[in-house]
């Protein structure tokens, strides 16, 4: 095991190399710049290609092109670039092109502050493109080590599901420094649960089966395909069509290949939920680490508090929210995003509350006090003007 002290950006780079990524196209942006920088150094060492794109729109299009050429590809950015992916992300979803997209979220609104963490793209990562009629897969690491593991996982899912996968990190994960273990032997790789899917080639004649199957090899141009790839509705053979019947099959496939295989994607962590706690914290990404500490601290003070940490956020794991309790969503934004899905997923009669911070993580003390306040049946204190009740 290689034992390093490094950033999430370095972890994501090494994960991509580990997973067999051979193409990176990107445009530098804080707090994801070092991914591009590291990839420009690492890819030539493994026979891969680095392309400095003119913008993020081009970056993801280049990755798609590379993937259609048979290479595993990745790009990385922050919110201001993620929004520019909207067009190529749709191509990759519609034409079922495997690609990995990393978003290191920083604080908004819009371009916000470069070096401060935020969680503003929760919903944008659900609908990263137009047209609807698709499901998204999004993984959200909360540490440097997990940034490594989930990036490897993202490459694996991209191949199996034939689609773009977003790794939704945040500035604390990507810019933060931490112990990073990189496995070197087969036993270490297995112990970490890392899986790598090799790129397969679809030789046709059916490129877009009207089913919910996964593990269908992706299109690699030049292998019996012609140019069977566009963002229009395809026939099974990949020709553009205006027929509604094919549109129905296409939409069914994009939605149900994900919905019907959720067990492969869904990952979450539960803290101290065994005794039906009064308050359940919910978080993803870096705030979930403070939540975990807060659950422990609250328990030490005799408060019945638990926590749910989402590792995969889309498709949203509704099934985790089956307990009646007072839920408190802890997020790095002021508008409340995750909280809306929590509100939708919890059983009737549950209370749902929101605690938002921006630019830095909340403190353990704050969270324990918030839990105590809720247990006492009082409203949470607003820092300034935020809406607390949901």
């Amino acid at each position: 095991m290689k034992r390093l002290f490094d950033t999430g950006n370095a972890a994501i780079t090494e994960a991509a190399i580990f997973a067999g990524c051979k193409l990176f196209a990107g445009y530098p942006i804080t707090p994801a710049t070092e991914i591009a920088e590291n990839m420009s150094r690492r890819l030539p060492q493994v026979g891969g290609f680095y392309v400095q794109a003119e913008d993020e729109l081009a970056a993801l299009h280049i990755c798609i092109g590379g993937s259609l050429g048979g290479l595993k590809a990745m790009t990385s950015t922050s919110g201001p670039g993620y929004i520019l992916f909207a067009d190529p992300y749709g191509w990759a979803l519609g034409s079922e092109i495997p690609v990995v997209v990393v978003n290191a979220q920083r604080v908004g609104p819009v371009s916000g502050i470069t070096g401060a963490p935020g969680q503003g793209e929760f919903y944008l990562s659900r609908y990263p493109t137009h047209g609807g009629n698709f499901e998204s897969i999004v993984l959200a690491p909360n540490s440097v080590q997990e940034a490594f593991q989930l990036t490897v996982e993202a490459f694996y899912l991209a191949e199996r599901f034939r689609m773009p996968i977003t790794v939704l990190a945040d500035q604390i994960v990507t810019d933060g420094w931490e112990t990073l273990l990189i496995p070197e032997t087969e036993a270490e790789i297995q112990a970490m649960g890392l899986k790598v899917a090799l790129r397969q080639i679809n030789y046709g004649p059916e490129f877009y089966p009207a089913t919910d199957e996964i593990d269908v090899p992706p299109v690699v141009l030049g292998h019996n395909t012609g140019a069977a790839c566009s963002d229009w509705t395809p026939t099974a053979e990949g020709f553009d069509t205006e027929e509604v019947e094919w549109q129905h099959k296409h939409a069914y496939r994009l939605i149900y290949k994900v919905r019907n295989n959720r067990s492969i994607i869904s990952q979450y962590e539960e803290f101290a939920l065994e005794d039906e706690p009064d308050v359940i914290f919910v978080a993803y990404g870096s705030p979930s680490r403070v939540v975990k500490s807060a659950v422990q601290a609250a328990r030490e003070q005799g408060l019945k508090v638990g926590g749910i940490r989402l590792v995969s956020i889309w498709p949203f794991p509704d099934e985790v929210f089956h307990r009646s309790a007072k839920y408190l969503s802890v997020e790095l934004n002021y508008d409340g995003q995750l909280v809306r899905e929590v509100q939708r997923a919890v059983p009737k009669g549950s209370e749902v509350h929101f605690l938002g911070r921006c630019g830095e993580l909340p403190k353990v003390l704050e969270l324990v006090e918030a839990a105590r306040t809720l247990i006492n049946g009082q409203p949470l204190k607003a820092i300034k003007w935020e809406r607390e009740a949901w």
Partner: protein
Amino acid sequence: MKRTEILISGFGGQGVVRLGQIFSTAAVYEGLYTTMLVSHGTETRGGYVRSQIVIAGQPIDSPVVENPDYFCAMSKSAYTKFMSLVTAGTILYDPGYVEPERNPIARHVAIPARDRVVQELGKDIFANSFFLGVLGQYFKTAIHKEHFYQALSERVAKFQAENRQAFDFGYSYQEGADA
């Protein structure tokens, strides 16, 4: 090792982040778990910089330093901004920049890093390595000195000999101090 929190803050250009990196790398080589959050102003030099470090014997949950066991105050504004976080810990301040409060609650220890390295090595840029040495002394039972030397040689590109000397000055300055 139990969870230990270290806060290092000063202004841009002093090597606050580098100091944190080297300290943390040494801890990782020792087999400990370490997290470091870095925040800074937008200026390349002169703005505020802060490293929040947590080390522990097991994986770390919250990486936030809420109640530092050690606070290295390397500028006046850093001292003013973060001193109230320290309740049970120790503030290691550079008297070249910081004038401590009159009746402080937290334990204060003066670390004349800037003046010592200017006097011995001719440049104030080695002050961070002096602070590293001081921390090395406090953590000498938890982290072997060799790991600091190894991390220092890996993370410092220039003036390695001088940085190592500055580390040694700091290490012996607080001889006998213990975490």
